[in-house]
Structure formats: structure tokens, C-alpha cells
């Protein structure tokens, strides 16, 4: 009986394999059909002069900072230069133990103001409120440490005055016109409550004064190269595909523009989850579906930000375990979305897809590997069959990455050198021979952690190597300390 069950499990693996690959193929087709239209609409916006009209919707950029003394000044300076007509920067010093606040005070001539903040969201108490005497649109909130990014973001939302908000990490690198593009869905559809952009990897790039100077690749670090490809697949066809069906389940926290009142209505970001960005997206869906309010969650593929990704085995493992734990947790918190009678494509296609092909996928993948070994042990494994399926799995895996590379080349061409293309080709092949399997194991661990409620340390080490070109000389001695940022501040792709 058990043996028959084992044999039957292979059918599950096969159906899973066919299902996931056909779904991704479908996303590719949707992306090829829709991405050019989306990008072309914005091309002239970028190519021709666009004087500000005073009719743009003002934006509050909320920068959460915890022990960021090495990068905070550069980061704020870069935000002060973005190309947008009306915006404010609200830096939330989340109880830093280093001199983040003192540096900000000195550099931007901060003056203390009475704390008259409109408190509508739960967060740790505010200790001080400052405004820059040099830049009227720069304000700093000093608060007690809340232990998670959500707490700091909620404080920033309370202190902000504009109708659209975006929570940013201190080390996020933006393109100058990122917000001009990201705001477009709000201008064209008043029902838009959230717009997400693309995230790319900054490791290997040259950054100067908070802006990207030259795009590059860390040739020797395959962990980073694999992640570049993962981000490409996620943002170039998966997101586009879901958005076309108005069922985008995830918007990355590192690049999301939120309608503030919609967030406040739901009580802001949740402090109980490992992935507050995903959780709020799902909660926004659930709330609007349940109440029948019309809404739109949009994706703007050419609104781009760059972020640092883990470059060591240890930090990458930690991030992926935490992401998957957070991902499963968020799906569980918002389980009412599944087959919700009013949920349309989101509830009947997108959420089941997320559960089967994302949340439970490591279970099926690891199960598949385990049973293959078992069959080999019992001598019933046909080498020809195993080889054929392995060849197919690897082939389809590489093909999907190559399709993403074709889209990247046709639409964006962010990687300028021919050598970049070749190294990405190589990485696309190698990725399937080990990394994907390890990744499945990390995600499996995350799934188990979620099931048993295990809490791993949320601190995540980042090398900050890309900052070396930009960081002030006197801060280099503290680089190692400052490269430790709160785990909650990473973003889920």
C-alpha cells in the first residue's frame, strides 16, 4: 500500500512539473504581449522634457533607518535629487544605537519641533521630531526601536503629510525618474491603491552620490548572478502576467507606492509577520474584495530601484528561509482570499497558484528528489526515464531564464556589455545544476519553520561592497558594523 502511494506520488510530481512550467510559459506569452505596450507608453515620457505641472500627486518617501550612519547621508542626498515635483522625505530613526540621528542633525541642520503627529497607527513611541532648516521637505522622526520595519514604516506614515507613501530602506538606490513612472497608475485610475515597480540587483554596480553610475555584474559571485536571474524572471514575466489579469498578489516592499488612506484604513503594516510587504498586499486585496470596493494594484515594470542582495551562502540561506516562512505565514493570515466568492481571478487562480506552486512547491520538489533516491535504492529506477525527465526539467528551467533574458534585451538592455550577456548565459545554465535544488531545500526549511512556529534570528548581514565607491572615507572603519541591517528590511521578490 505504502509502495503504491510512493508510486502515485510520482504522478503528483509530474503533474506539478507540467503545471508550473505551463503556467510560466503562459506568463511569458502574456508578458511578450503586454510588456512592450507598457514600456512604450512611458518611453516618450523619459525621452522628452516634461516640465512639472503642479498637478502631480505629492509623495511621502519614508526612509526607515536602523544603525545606518555610513549610508544615511548619501541616501537622503540622493532622494533630495529625484525628479519629482512635490515630495517630502520622512526619515524614521528606529532607535539606532549608532550616531545615525546625530549625523542627520549635523548634515541637514535639523531643528527640533513639537511632536504634533497625527497618530493613527500602532507603533513605538516617538522621541523627537525634526525639520531641516536647509531642505523644507526633509523631516526626521526619532522613535524607540520597534524591532521590525513595519513599526518604523507605520511611524513614518503617521508623520507623513502627502496622500501617497512609499517605504524605502536607507540603502535603496533609485533611478531619477522612478517616481514619475510609478505614480502613473494613480494618475490614470483613481481606484489605484498600490503600484509596484521592479527591483534589480546593485551588487557589482558602481554607485556615486546615491545614484547608479555604471551597471555591472559581480563576475565571480554566482550566488549574486543567480539572484539577478531570479529577479529578472520574477519582474519581467511573472508580475506582468498577474497584473494583466488584475491579480497581482505581491508587491515588493522595497518599491511600492501606496495610497496612504487605504493603508491606514487597514491599520498599517503588520508587525507580526516576516514579510510585511506581501502581507499588506494580500490584506489590501482581501479588504477590497470583501467590502466590494473597486480597486487596482498595478505594476510598472520600468519604474526601477536597485537593492543589495546577499552574497554569501549563509546570508542567502537565511534570507530565503525567512522569505518562505514569511510568505507562507502571509498566505495563512489571509487564507480567506482562497476561493472567495467575489475574488475573481485572484481568489480562484492566483492564490491557489501561490499555495500550490510557491508555498508548497518545496515540499513537492524535495519529495520528488527523496523518492527518486528511494527508487534508485530499491533498484526500480529506470535510468533512461530519470535522465529524460532530468533533461526536460533542466531544459525548461534554462529556457524560462533565457526567455526572461530575451525580454530584458528587447525592452531594457540594462546590462551594457557583451561579456555581461555571456556570464548571464553561463549562470542561467549552472543555476539549474544545484542552486535550484539548494534553494528548494531552504524554502522547505522555511515551510517547516512556519509549521512549527520556529523563530530564527532576523538579523541579516550585508557586505555593502557596492557602497565602497560612494561611502565617505571616515565611515569606512565602521563599514562592517553598519552592514548589519535588520532582516525585516529585506524585500520579498
Amino acid at each position, binding site marked *: 500500500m505504502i509502495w503504491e502511494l510512493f508510486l502515485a506520488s510520482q504522478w503528483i510530481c509530474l503533474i506539478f512539473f507540467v503545471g508550473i512550467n505551463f503556467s510560466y510559459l503562459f506568463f511569458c506569452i502574456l508578458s511578450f504581449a503586454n510588456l512592450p505596450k507598457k514600456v*512604450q507608453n512611458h518611453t516618450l515620457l523619459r525621452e522628452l522634457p516634461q516640465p512639472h505641472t503642479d498637478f502631480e500627486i505629492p509623495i511621502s518617501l519614508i526612509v526607515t533607518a536602523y544603525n545606518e550612519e555610513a549610508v544615511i547621508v548619501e541616501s537622503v542626498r540622493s532622494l533630495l535629487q529625484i525628479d519629482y515635483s512635490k515630495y517630502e522625505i520622512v526619515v524614521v530613526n528606529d532607535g539606532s544605537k549608532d550616531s545615525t540621528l546625530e549625523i542627520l542633525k549635523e548634515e541637514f541642520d535639523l531643528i527640533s519641533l513639537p511632536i504634533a503627529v497625527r497618530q493613527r497607527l500602532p507603533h513605538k513611541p516617538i522621541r523627537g521630531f525634526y525639520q531641516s532648516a536647509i531642505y523644507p521637505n526633509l523631516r526626521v522622526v526619532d522613535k524607540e526601536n520597534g524591532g521590525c520595519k513595519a513599526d518604523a514604516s507605520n511611524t513614518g506614515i503617521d508623520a507623513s503629510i502627502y496622500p501617497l507613501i512609499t517605504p524605502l530602506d536607507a540603502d535603496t538606490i533609485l533611478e531619477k525618474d522612478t517616481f514619475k513612472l510609478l505614480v502613473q497608475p494613480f494618475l490614470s485610475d483613481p481606484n489605484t491603491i498600490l503600484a509596484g515597480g521592479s527591483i534589480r540587483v546593485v551588487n557589482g554596480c558602481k554607485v556615486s552620490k546615491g545614484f547608479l553610475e555604471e551597471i555591472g555584474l559581480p563576475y565571480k559571485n554566482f550566488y549574486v548572478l543567480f539572484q539577478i536571474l531570479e529577479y529578472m524572471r520574477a519582474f519581467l514575466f511573472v508580475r506582468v502576467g498577474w497584473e494583466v489579469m488584475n491579480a497581482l498578489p505581491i508587491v515588493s516592499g522595497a518599491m511600492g507606492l501606496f495610497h496612504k488612506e487605504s493603508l491606514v484604513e487597514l491599520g498599517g503594516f503588520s508587525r507580526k509577520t516576516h514579510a510585511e510587504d506581501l502581507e499588506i498586499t494580500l490584506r489590501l486585496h482581501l479588504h477590497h474584495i470583501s467590502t466590494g470596493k473597486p480597486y487596482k494594484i498595478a505594476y510598472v515594470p520600468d519604474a526601477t530601484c536597485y537593492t543589495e542582495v546577499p552574497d554569501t551562502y549563509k546570508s542567502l540561506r537565511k534570507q530565503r528561509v525567512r522569505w518562505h516562512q514569511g510568505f507562507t505565514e502571509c498566505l495563512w493570515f489571509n487564507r480567506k482570499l482562497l476561493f472567495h466568492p467575489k475574488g475573481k481571478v485572484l481568489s480562484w487562480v492566483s492564490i491557489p497558484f501561490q499555495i500550490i506552486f510557491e508555498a508548497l512547491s518545496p515540499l513537492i520538489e524535495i519529495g520528488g528528489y527523496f523518492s527518486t533516491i528511494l527508487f534508485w535504492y530499491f533498484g526500480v529506477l529506470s535510468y533512461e526515464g530519470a535522465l*529524460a525527465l532530468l533533461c526536460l526539467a533542466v531544459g525548461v528551467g534554462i*529556457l524560462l531564464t533565457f526567455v526572461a533574458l530575451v525580454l530584458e534585451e528587447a525592452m531594457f538592455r540594462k546590462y551594457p556589455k557583451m561579456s555581461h550577456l555571456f556570464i548571464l548565459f553561463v549562470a542561467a545554465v549552472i543555476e539549474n545544476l544545484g542552486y535550484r535544488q539548494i534553494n528548494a531545500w531552504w524554502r522547505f526549511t522555511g515551510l517547516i519553520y512556519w509549521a512549527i512556529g520556529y523563530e530564527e534570528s532576523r538579523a541579516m548581514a550585508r557586505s555593502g561592497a557596492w557602497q565602497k565607491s560612494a561611502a565617505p572615507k571616515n565611515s569606512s572603519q565602521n563599514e562592517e558594523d553598519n552592514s548589519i541591517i535588520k532582516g525585516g528590511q529585506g524585500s520579498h521578490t
Partner: protein
Amino acid sequence: MLGFGIDSRFIIWLAWWMGAISFLLIFISGLLILFLRTFYDQHQKNIKNQSSEWESILLNSFEFVPTELPVLTKRTTVSFLVLWNYLLESLQDEAKENLIIIAYLLKLDQWAATALRQRNVRQKLLAIQTLGLLGEKSIWDELETLTSDKNSTVSLAAIRSLIKIDKKKAISIFLPLIGKRKDWSFSMGGKILKEAGPEVISEPFVKQLRNSSNDDELVRLLRYLDLAYMQTTAPLIRELLQTSEDFKTIKFCLKAVTDPQDLELVRKLLKHEHWEVRTQAASALGRMGTDDDEKRLIHAAGDQEWWVRYRAAQALANLPSISEEKLEEIAKTHQNFFGSDMIYKVIGERKVAL
């Protein structure tokens, strides 16, 4: 027997073939990427070579139009037009004439007229914009048809070009559509109306507001109220402030109100049940209030809504008779803790601003 226990030779056969097809597609994708890159690099090289030549011709054209122009190849037409449009959008009127002559010499009007029918959105947008900048009246009907295009970027670009060709005629097409096209960018709409100018839009705008069939349409138009002449809009604003029950309508009217005749109406609305109306009423009093409004604003600074308190405190600070010392005294003696805090905040902001 498939080794995993699935007894089917067919599945193995299929897997082999699918795997082989995948690898073939990978190979083709790789070649396609390399082809795209090579083509793009070559294209960029050509554009760079020709652009520098065209750039100097276009820049020199501010003074004179060259008697002989190089041939504009099909490949470089788009990049040339981007440059041409860029210059024309950035220049003052008198410098534009020669650029327009060059465009006609190169028969760009013909290219643009053909490109209007293309599926490529970028080229279509470029064509629409070019025809507008050329003031090409012969293409009016086609551009008018494009104002109802499903793509909001295309339809708004067509409106903008029509405005450039004939402001009055285009405004009569544009205004009725603002209330109906919910997908149109609010900022682009404002940009177009601003370009048309208050002398053209004021009267038809008020007429359109009066003809609005519902509150939703009315509100969409009211957002642009301050782009029209105040003296033209004032009677309508007054009427709406007196009669409307829709808080959004009242809110947008309060944003634009500047006529001292309406002061009593604004004062009454400081007690409106909706906080957004109270906020705008406080802001309006900040613009047009008198010393008689001091008590009202002190009271409003203690409102239960943060925004009303903030705008009322700001308005209070703007009153002619309010000195810094007096403001501090008001903050100190304010009966409401939140009101006192808010006035102190505004005092601090004013100090920072100085």
C-alpha cells in the same frame, strides 16, 4: 516502465522530445539575444554618427536654415524626431520657426501622417506630437479620432496636439471628455489646460461645469478650477458653495475661492460636518481671512481632526494682526491640548522657514 513507476514509454518519449525542443529553443533564444544586442549596438552607432551631424544642423538652424540638408534615412528618422521634438519642446517661440521649416524640408509631416496609423505606440506618440508642433491643420480629423483612442496616453497626446493647432476648437473637444474619461491622467489634463491658457479655457470651462450631468463629472472638472480666471469662475463657485451638498464639490470650490465676497460662506463651512471641508475652509481663511476670524481659527485649531487643526493653526499665523508673541500666547492659553501643540508646531515651522 518509467523508472519512477509510471508505466509509460510514451512519457519517456515525450520527455526526451520536450527536453530536446527546450534545448533547441534555448539555443535560438541565445542567438536571438546576441542578434538583438549586435543589431542594437550597430543601430546606436549609426544613430550616434548621424545624430552629431543632425544635432549641429539643428542647433545652427536657430540662426539660419541650411540650403542643403543630408538625407534622413528611415532608420534614423525616429531618433532624429526625438531630438527635434526635444529641442522644440525646450525652446521659446521665436527659435522654433527654423526647426519647423527643416521638418517640412525633410517631409516629416508626411512621415508623421503615416506613422499615426502604426501599431507601435512610441512611433505613434512621436507622430502625434510632431504634427502638433508643426501645427498641421490638414491632419485635424485624424487627430480628433485619436482623442477617443482606448490608450489614455495616445488620446491625451492627440488632445495636446490639437491644442497646439487650434486652442479654441480643441478645448471644445477636450472639456466634455474630461468628465467622462476616468483613465485620463489628472496631471496631463492640467498640463494641457495650462498650455491652452486661462484666456481660452475660462468661459467654456464654466459652461462645461454648468452642463455636468452628475457630481462625479463635476468634481473631475472642478479639480482644474484655479486654472481659469477667478472673475469668470467666482459666480459659479459662490453658487456651488451655497447650494451643493456634495462634500467633494464644496472642497474643490473652497480650494479655489479667493473672492472676499464669499468670506461669510467660507466661515460657515468651517463648521461643516465633513473634516475635508473644514480643512479647506481653514486654508481658505488663511488666504482671505481677516482679524475677525481669529476666534474662529483658534477654536478650529482644537478640532478633532489633525488636518483641520494644522490648517487652522497655519491660517491663524497668517492673519495680519497675529505676531509671533501673540501666537505663542494663544498656544500657551489654548484650552485644547492638541490645539496648543499644533500652534507650537506651526510656530516651530515658521522659525525653521525663516
